[in-house]
């Protein structure tokens, strides 16, 4: 026993070397706390610098991990708690970049200046914390770890949602929280059965799925469905998406950008890791994983689009847009072929990029229009052309039209569906393909709504002056440029993705 403890601790210590990015995240959190506590409080600028610095370090460390892992390699850490492979490193890099951008957003915290500074420090911490949760979920190979990571993401999400400190913050936050609480309880209930039937929490352990597949009965199906609930909640897929519009409506734009990207992608990675096992064990039941996921994907994208059509608020619109995109991301896990894996990773990157860029621009408009009501976008395209045009590009990218990488992403995704249809021949795939493509058309109806209002409606007489913080414009322009660039040179991104090992 002692020996085992010793070896475990040694392994843990050894593992720390490959855990540096997360350590850096924790360190920055602690550092900000320490400075906040032991000085007279950090100014906004300093919090920002600290947070961004932290993310920079994380970014650097994550980049260092990339060559460490050959494409085939994966390292398990902390007694099979975590698994480090290129997939997780890839998204860690993305998360760090997202984190840097998110901290650059204009401060949207209400309150008296000194308090705002305090609050911003906590906000920075929460962003870092959410990134930590994201990292852990990316690497999770254990249901306990996954649960903890999901909870980290959730709770930091609830808190971030509140961090505008306005009247409705509480409502959005509590709705998010209740929904999250219930869905995590449901998920846990599912996990408990998975644990009980599988005998272990470590889902990379071959025993786990082997044990599970012995007991292929309704209970197992229910356990899987209930476990999915929590993951779908993080993905904001239907039917677990209801929190999104309300939470999006009140959350600070920066935090929102992070919430809309990090938990979603991290949960997607978890789902990617679970998919082979789940689809294997479900193969023995009448419920096929492919049909299940395809159904959820179809419903999600369709309902998300349909709901988005009627929105009058840009943030709610973005919420439903996120829902619809979840549907598209789920296409990738319907059939997890190598191609669809590449496609979905590609799509996720593009989605993150477009979403971040769009939120950056929306934050500009939010300075004068805190609720981002669409009715107040009228004519702004002529008032300030540059952000409007950039927003247009972002929206086109989200729609998935050329010449933006959104199109490349959709193209690859649909191609992968078609390719697997060709090899499998399941008709639900054609349905998925057709519905997905039709949804692209429908999506146009709402994505272009804001640019449409900005260009096609006259400017009201008492139009507010638009502040255009140059830094934000520069960064969003960079994001949009990247979207254009990746369309023209998709191989620049694909080369990276190709070196991720699909075998997981």
């Amino acid at each position, binding site marked *: 026993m002692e020996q085992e403890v010793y070896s475990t601790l040694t392994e843990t210590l050894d593992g720390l070397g490959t855990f540096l990015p997360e350590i850096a995240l924790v360190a920055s959190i602690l550092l900000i706390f320490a400075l906040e506590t032991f000085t007279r409080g950090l100014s906004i600028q300093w919090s920002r610098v600290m947070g961004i610095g932290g993310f920079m370090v994380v970014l650097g460390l994550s980049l260092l991990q990339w060559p460490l892992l050959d494409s085939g390699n994966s390292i398990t850490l902390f007694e099979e708690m975590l698994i480090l492979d290129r997939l997780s490193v890839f998204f860690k890099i993305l998360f760090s970049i997202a984190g840097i951008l998110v901290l650059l957003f204009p401060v949207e915290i209400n309150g008296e200046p000194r308090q705002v500074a305090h609050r911003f420090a906590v906000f920075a911490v929460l962003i870092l914390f959410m990134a930590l949760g994201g990292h852990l979920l990316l690497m999770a190979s254990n249901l306990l770890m996954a649960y903890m990571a999901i909870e980290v993401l959730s709770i930091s999400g609830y808190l971030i949602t509140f961090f505008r400190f306005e009247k409705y913050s509480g409502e959005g936050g*509590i*709705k998010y929280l*209740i*929904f999250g609480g*219930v*869905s995590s309880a*449901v998920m846990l209930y599912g996990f408990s059965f998975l644990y009980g039937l599988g005998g272990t929490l470590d889902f990379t352990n071959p025993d786990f799925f082997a044990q599970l597949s012995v007991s292929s009965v*309704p209970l197992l*199906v*229910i356990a899987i*469905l*209930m476990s999915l*609930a929590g993951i779908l909640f993080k993905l904001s897929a*239907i*039917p*677990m998406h*209801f*929190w999104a*519009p*309300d939470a999006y409506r009140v959350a600070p734009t920066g935090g929102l950008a992070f919430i809309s990207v990090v938990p979603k992608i991290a949960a997607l990675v978890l789902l990617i890791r679970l998919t082979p096992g789940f689809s294997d064990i479900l193969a023995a*039941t*009448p*419920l096929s994983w492919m049909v*299940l996921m395809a159904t959820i994907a179809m419903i999600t994208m369709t*309902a998300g689009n*349909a*709901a988005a*059509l*009627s929105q009058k608020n840009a943030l709610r619109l973005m919420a*439903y847009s996120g829902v619809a995109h979840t549907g598209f991301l789920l296409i990738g896990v319907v059939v997890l072929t190598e191609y669809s894996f590449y496609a979905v990773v590609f799509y996720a990157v593009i989605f993150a990029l477009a979403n971040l860029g769009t939120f950056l621009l929306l934050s500009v408009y939010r300075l004068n229009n805190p609720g981002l009501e669409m009715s107040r976008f009228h004519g702004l395209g002529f008032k300030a052309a540059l952000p409007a045009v950039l927003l247009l590009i972002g929206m086109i990218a989200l729609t998935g039209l050329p010449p933006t990488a959104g199109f490349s992403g959709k193209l690859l995704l649909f191609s992968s569906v078609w390719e697997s249809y060709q090899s499998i021949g399941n008709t639900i795939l054609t349905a998925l393909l057709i519905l997905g493509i039709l949804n692209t058309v*429908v999506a146009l*109806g709402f994505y272009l709504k804001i640019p449409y209002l900005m260009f096609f409606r006259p400017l009201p007489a008492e139009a507010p002056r638009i502040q255009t913080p140059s830094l934000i414009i520069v960064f969003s322009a960079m994001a949009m440029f990247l979207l254009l660039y990746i369309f023209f040179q998709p191989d620049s991104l694909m080369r990276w993705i190709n070196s991720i090992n699909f075998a997981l």
Partner: protein
Amino acid sequence: MEALPFHNWYWDLIFLGPVLGLILGLVLFKKKVGVFTTLGMAFSTFFLVFLCLWNLDTPVTSKIFNWWHIGSGQNILQVDILFTSNRLTLLMGSLVGFIATLVFWYSTHYEALKGDKSRYYAGLVLFTFAMMGIVFSGNLLLTFVFWELVGFSSWFLIGYWHHKPEAARAARKAFLVNRIGDIGFIIALMLVGVYGGTFDIEVLLREAHSGHQAWMTWAGAGLLLAVIGKSAQFPLLTWLPDAMEGPTPVSALLHAATMVAAGVFLLVRMFDFLAEPVLTTAAFVGGITAFMGAFAAWRQEDIKKVLAFSTISQLGFMIASIGAGYPQFAFLHLFTHAFFKAGLFLGAGVMAHHANSYSLEAMGGMLKKAPWVTYAFIAAALALAGVPLFSGFISKEAILAGINNWTAISVREGFHSSILVSILLWSGVFLTAVYVARMLGYLLKPKNETAAVSTPNSQLIPVVLLGIGSIWLVAGLLPWDFSQAWIIDQSAESIPEAPIWMMPLTISLIIFGGYLGYRDVHYTKQKAFNRAVTNLSRLNWQLDAIYNAMIVAPTLWVAGMVRIIDKKVLDGLYNGAVAGFVVVGHFLNLVDRYLVDGTVHLSVYVVRRSGVLAKAGSGSIQAYLIWAALFLLVLIITVFFMFIGF
């Protein structure tokens, strides 16, 4: 006579004379553009006559250049610019040139054309040019090009006084009705191009000569349809009377040598190509038209209308003759008709100038006012009526003989209804005499007005020339023997013998008809029957009303329906597709409500209908949760059913 070597530049002389005249006139002396154009036309005509003298019996076809072609090797379809000079084309060309020259000349002092005449002469030149094209073209497609150009220039000239709504309407009607006929031409072209593989008329005629094929019948039928349109035959005859809205010289040109003659000419030209059924149809069409036109001419009030219907009727004679298998006689009649009809129109123009009106009532006492013109007019009118010693007698006699022969043969072969054609034609002869006499009666009715207006020489001379051209000498030396007419190519086909009873019968019909017609001038009693006849005649058998009710109105109705389909159904489909999965029951309501407001509103509507997902009723988080749970339940229950084997 020894034939001249034929050079391609001859065609330049033939075609470009009036064009150069026009251009020269426009450039040099705009006021005298008419004179220049007339000179140019006269030059071309002289050249044509000259060619007639030398080259009448040596057919030449010259290829000017390749216009376009499709394909290569075996499958090539060539469209060459081909011009053919042979007996028929040269004679026709000379005729067109002659009449055109006179009309051009006449027009130089035509008072109703005020001010700038360059537009008018441009139209005339185009008209003649196109007609020449039809005459000489050796390529059926090219013929069609000119054919349409004739249509276009007639549209242009009929609508010359475009500020008059009637003129504009008449122009449109003329072109449209012609267009209907042209459909036949296009179908013929399609068949010829696809099955014949060439548009070369000579080749086609040769091919047809060596044996008729089925497609030729249909192509011929198409051509006949085109001719029916262009030559104003039944049932497409309504446009010609309306075309009187144009200037009178234009009418003269149109009736005599260019437009309507083109139809007859085409049938003559393509005669070998036409199959038996087509010809029979043509005979009937011609017979019916000859009768209908003559009847319609009977009670007209307007001298130009009388003349217009007479043209229709005479064209009917020609078509019937072709149908009976005697294109030469048709051509002979075309030839004589050109002279006297041009004379009639030009004369009528002068007289109308004197009477300040085209109304027959106003025409009295012409003999005093413009004696020479009136004499010429009477000569031409007598020719029209087919009075012996005038050209019309010869040609009409020929046609009647031909028809008689054809009927006899047909009846012998058991085709008894061919008698109808004979009867119709004879009645046509009779009615012609009636309306000519009636017209002359009005003309000669004494009237006590002495407002003498002098007639300029440029008008007097053409009319008189044409009047002279109406006597028998124009056709042949012997005023009673059509077979000796110099136009007739004796070698070409068998010339039927006229039965001995024919000439007396015609003459007596003419005398009787003339008597009746002359009495008709003074006929004032208003009997119901008489009124009905008058209405029927004056309104041309009510054809306009019938066509309006049967063709125009239904077409517009269909178009309106299509419009509604377009607006309601197809737009509705679009809007409905945007609406997505809205229940069918809502569909119609939807279209009505959102047709105008459009897509944006529609999508909102869709979501209001299907937006339960977004709203879940109350907007409360627990409702959301319940929805999610129900969703999960549905999933689970589905799975259970799957387990059971549902």
